[in-house]
């Protein structure tokens, strides 16, 4: 006992130093964590958006976004499954044999999708019916297994949960955007049928943006989804190009003239 106490009491300055170091280390760790969360948010919402950049899960993305309500229903379901599966995969990552990790991930995702499907069947039956086969098909959504494989299986639970949240949000935002474009162009409304998702009170949410004599069927049919999606991706790339072009102007290099002498 005395041996352990003696060095601490002998030099007080060392203790304060080590405490300072600990605080600094803690602070840097905190800052690093913050930076990591920020990076995760940026990656999920913009730079590596599952809908716009990775182009994963295109099948439900294009198929069910004919109205905002459908898009919101699928977006929320995917978000929930993504967060839960990321957390679970991350929690069991030390005990999963590497060779059979993909089947295990798929089973985990399938379990959560089944939960979500049963919940929606019980509480939002209308949206359950209008989503149809695309609700159980979330199991095969590559965005979810992609995050489980690429991030959650290698990182701690908190970060994985945040990553799932951000990726899910990024996906849901694209779904909503596409749904809004197609619903406005197709039938001139917004939030049509929101009562199917949120209950009776939500029928007041329905907005009549413009009065159309006839539906613009192309926007409602899948080809319209492809065209709108292409335009969204082009818009994202244009914004990125614009930003990078601005950065180049800021750090314009000084061009040196190099004299080349051919006579020598």
């Amino acid at each position, binding site marked *: 006992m005395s041996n352990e106490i003696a060095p601490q009491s002998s030099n007080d300055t060392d203790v304060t130093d080590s405490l300072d170091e600990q605080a600094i280390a803690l602070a840097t760790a905190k800052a690093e964590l913050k930076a990591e969360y920020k990076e995760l948010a940026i990656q999920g919402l913009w730079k590596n958006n599952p809908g716009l950049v990775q182009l994963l899960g295109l099948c439900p993305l294009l198929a069910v976004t004919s109205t905002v309500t459908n898009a919101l229903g699928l977006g929320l379901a995917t978000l929930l499954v993504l967060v839960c599966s990321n957390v679970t995969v991350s929690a069991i990552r030390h005990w999963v044999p590497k060779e059979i990790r993909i089947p295990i991930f798929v089973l985990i995702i399938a379990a959560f999708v089944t939960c979500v499907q049963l919940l929606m069947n019980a509480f939002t039956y209308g949206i359950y019916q209008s989503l149809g086969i695309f609700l159980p098909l979330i199991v095969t959504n590559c965005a979810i297994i992609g995050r489980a494989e690429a991030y959650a299986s290698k990182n701690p639970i908190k970060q994985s949960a945040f990553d799932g949240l951000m990726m899910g949000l990024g996906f849901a935002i694209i779904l909503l955007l596409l749904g809004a474009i197609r619903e406005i162009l197709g039938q001139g409304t917004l939030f049509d049928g929101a009562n199917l998702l949120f209950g009776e009170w939500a029928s007041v949410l329905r907005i009549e943006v413009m009065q159309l004599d*006839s539906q*613009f*069927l*192309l*926007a409602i*049919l899948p080809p319209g989804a492809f*065209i709108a999606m292409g335009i969204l991706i082009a818009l994202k790339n244009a914004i990125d190009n614009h930003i990078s072009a601005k950065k180049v102007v800021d750090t314009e290099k000084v061009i040196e003239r190099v004299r080349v002498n051919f006579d020598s």
Partner: protein
Amino acid sequence: MAFWIASSPHNHNHTKTPNLMRLVIYATLPGVLAQWYFFGWGNLIHIGLAMATALVCEFTVLSLRKKPISHELFDGSALLTALLIGICLPALAPWWISVIGTMFAIVIVKQLYGGLGHNPFNPAMAGYVMLLVSFPLQMTLWQPPLTLVAVDLNFSNTLTTILTGFTVEGYSVEQIRTSIDGITMATPLDTLKTNTGLGLTVFESIENPVFGNNFALGWEWINAGFLLGGIFLIFKKAIAWQTPVSFLLSLFICSFISYSLSPDSSASTMFHWFSGATMLGAFFILTDPVTGATSNKGRIIVGLLAGLLVYLIRTAGGYPDGVAFAILLCNMSAPLIDQYTRPRTYGHLKGDK
């Protein structure tokens, strides 16, 4: 003295895109005039609307893409696309039909793929099909020939109908389309399809006034006009003869087989040639140098395929006329056909790569 050395070809015919496009536009004149004579001003108004929209769209996209505007805007290709859309539309369709169709054709089908020469699909037909799929109600508002219409469809009446949906006297489009007997009149192809579905024979169907004395009142002369323009284009060597000839032959053979097997339930060969958009498709759309096949053998195959598809869609499909769909399907298969019909290079053996 230095000799100027150049590789072949040494003989150029100096045809530029604007000249070719202008020639094709002139060649549609007989058909358009026949359309005006039998169906009134509707299509001419739509052609004007479509052309104005096409120029505005082309200008906007070209300036966004930072392309030489004066050079590409007036090469006539956009005007030709607009002209073809205007010809295809039902005469009394609302004005926004031609505007939306032309915008889609120019902006999405043509310019987003890289402009003239890079579009995999014929812009006019893609625009038309988009309209047909999106607005089935408006796109079937076919107007009967003027001789069968009770309302006097002069220029101002047609213009107000297209802009507001009602004539100056207040007749709606539905009232214009209704005959004296109170039956809505459709195109001959449409009538035939409906009647065959109801179990009537072809001979009973062609008693309907829209069929006229020969094959299809008005339509036969429009098709004859486009045939005339097409022959003029072949003599001017603006289009290859293989595509239209094989297309018409294929359609003839298909309809001949079914007509000789059961004349009660299938229309005659000449009815298929001279109704709907047969001649327009054969000479003006299928021969598009950008979206069609390039080798002679390939052109023949594309023509045969298109004829078969038109016949199948007309008889077994859900739409009365199938020229637009058939042409889009042929556009899709043209690169593959080109791949397998490469002509033998001079000096090489057959099959020698």
